[in-house]
């Protein structure tokens, strides 16, 4: 990965082109026709400063600092509504999340935002996948959210605690536990999201 260029002038496309080459889904970003479907669909849209649509326009305009400092990156809950509805088939969620990762890496994001964001994402991932939070997986996913090297480092730091927990019978070994009727849980989550959006 080449270094993220800093545009020399307004609408210098170097940043946009870098995003196109280096951010997952970035090759589709320029397909945006600025219709607003994504931002309008976002259940967390009120919390965002820009929303994905405007964020994408800012990428094109080369507003690197503003893009990577945007709260939009941290408010995405990965509900994928924008992705599914986008009339241009742009993987909006993917792009936003990878921009968030980029922001974290480039040191734009406030530390707590990054940690909270990565943790809550890991937590939700487990809850949605298994109906339970599997501490091992949540922790590992959280650690590796910071990148591979950082993940290894964090994991080694916590190895002792983990082994202690296993010994004390507080953490099991083997396949993650799941709940019965996972499909019903999914329906419940979907409904909850819908209510949240309406409210």
């Amino acid at each position, binding site marked *: 990965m080449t270094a993220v260029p800093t545009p020399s002038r307004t609408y210098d496309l170097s940043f946009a082109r870098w995003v196109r080459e280096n951010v997952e889904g970035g090759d589709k970003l320029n397909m945006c026709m*600025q219709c*607003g479907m994504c931002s*309008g669909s976002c259940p967390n849209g009120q919390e965002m400063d820009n929303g994905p649509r405007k964020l994408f326009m800012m990428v094109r305009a080369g507003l690197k600092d503003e893009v990577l400092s945007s709260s939009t990156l941290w408010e995405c809950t990965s509900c994928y509504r924008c992705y599914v509805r986008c009339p241009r088939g742009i993987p909006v969620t993917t792009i936003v999340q990878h921009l968030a990762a980029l922001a974290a890496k480039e040191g734009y994001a406030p530390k707590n935002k990054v940690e909270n964001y990565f943790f809550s994402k890991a937590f939700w991932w487990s809850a949605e996948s298994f109906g339970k939070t599997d501490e091992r997986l949540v922790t590992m996913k959280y650690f590796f959210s910071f990148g591979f090297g950082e993940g290894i480092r964090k994991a080694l730091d916590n190895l002792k605690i983990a082994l202690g927990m296993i010994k004390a019978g507080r953490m099991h070994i083997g396949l993650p536990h799941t709940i019965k009727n996972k499909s019903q849980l999914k329906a419940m989550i979907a409904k909850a999201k819908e209510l949240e959006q309406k409210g």
Partner: protein
Amino acid sequence: MTFVERRGTMAQDGPHSQTIAVIGGGIAGLTAALEAAETGYDVILIEKEPALGGRVTRLNRYFPKFCHPTCGLEINYQRLRKNPRVKVLTMHEVVAVDGEKGNYTITAKKLPRFVNEKCTACGECGKVCETEIDDPYNYGMSKVKAARLPHEHAWPMRYVIDPVVKGTDDQKRIEEACKYGAVDFSEEEEEVTINAGAIVWATGWRPYDARKLETYHYDSSPDIINNVEMERLANHDGPTGGKVVRPSNGEPAKKVALIQCAGSRDVNHLPYCSMICCLASLKHAAYVLEQYEDAEVHMYYIDIRAHDKMQTFYERLKVDPRLKFIKSKPAEIGLGEDGRPYVKGERTIDRELYCESYDLVVLATGMEPEAKGVDIKGDVVKDEDGFVLALEGEDGGQFSCGVAAGPFDVALSTMSGTAAALKAIQAVGAR
């Protein structure tokens, strides 16, 4: 060359027909048929509905002139009445086409009308008929007698009876009421074949099924309608006699949202721009503004695509302060708790999120080609979206015009209809 070989060659060539078949009796097909016939060629015009006129006969007005489609249609029907060269087949639905230039076989499903050419349109059958059906002329927004004249400007001016009455008491009543021997319930659906030397596809379009736009909840409220229904609502012979009201309760629809690109410009639905919707919606805005002094119309759009001369039309309407343009593709439309539909999304110009309630929401649904489901073989191209195009070059004998060929407005449809007439004439051998 032996005698047998020569016979063989002849059989292969088949009979060369100079008749031009036009499939579809909407504005494009009518134009193609009449232009060819007035140039001296025999034409068979095949229409699946009981009357000609297609989509445009259901429209209230044309943009940008605000004139009525029946005005131009009337002239075309006058031309048709005086021209013995055009043979019109109504209630014939083309299901397959095979063959080659000079010798095509068109297979059509002949649907029973239960009324023959002796019908005088006196209306006695309609009087005694008790069964009512959803009026297809009004897209089901109102009821109509099962024995009916398709509409006041129907051509041919002949009644049609819906198959639901077959075998009921209504059948007996209808048979007894007709003094002219015009009712014939023995008619069955049958397959017929038609031969022609050249074919013009003018099968037109249908509105994109708004139910497929899941987040727009078209079915959740009768006050969420599509653009062709809006045309009926504003039309003097529509379900409300031309009053733009809320279909749910008949109250005036003063606050109206017009939603552009409901299906069009969307890779999940119709990838192309349907061309007409922006202008049709501007026209819809004018309908509302004309009827209510205190109207409030919001047009949600991505781009206002007022092409060629239409820009003037847009500029002329733009100045009305009661009409607001909101650059936004609404994310969600639904039925609010107050019983009115709401529209939700992001205003892109100022990045504000909105959720507004309306009396009426009109989805500008795009055009989907009707030819999508027809089995077409041979010298013609059908693209991924179902539009039909003639072969490139000069070899084919099948041509297309109107929305069968692409998302066109009426001006482009009449233009392409006239052009298709020439191509067909060239194909059967200009003389």
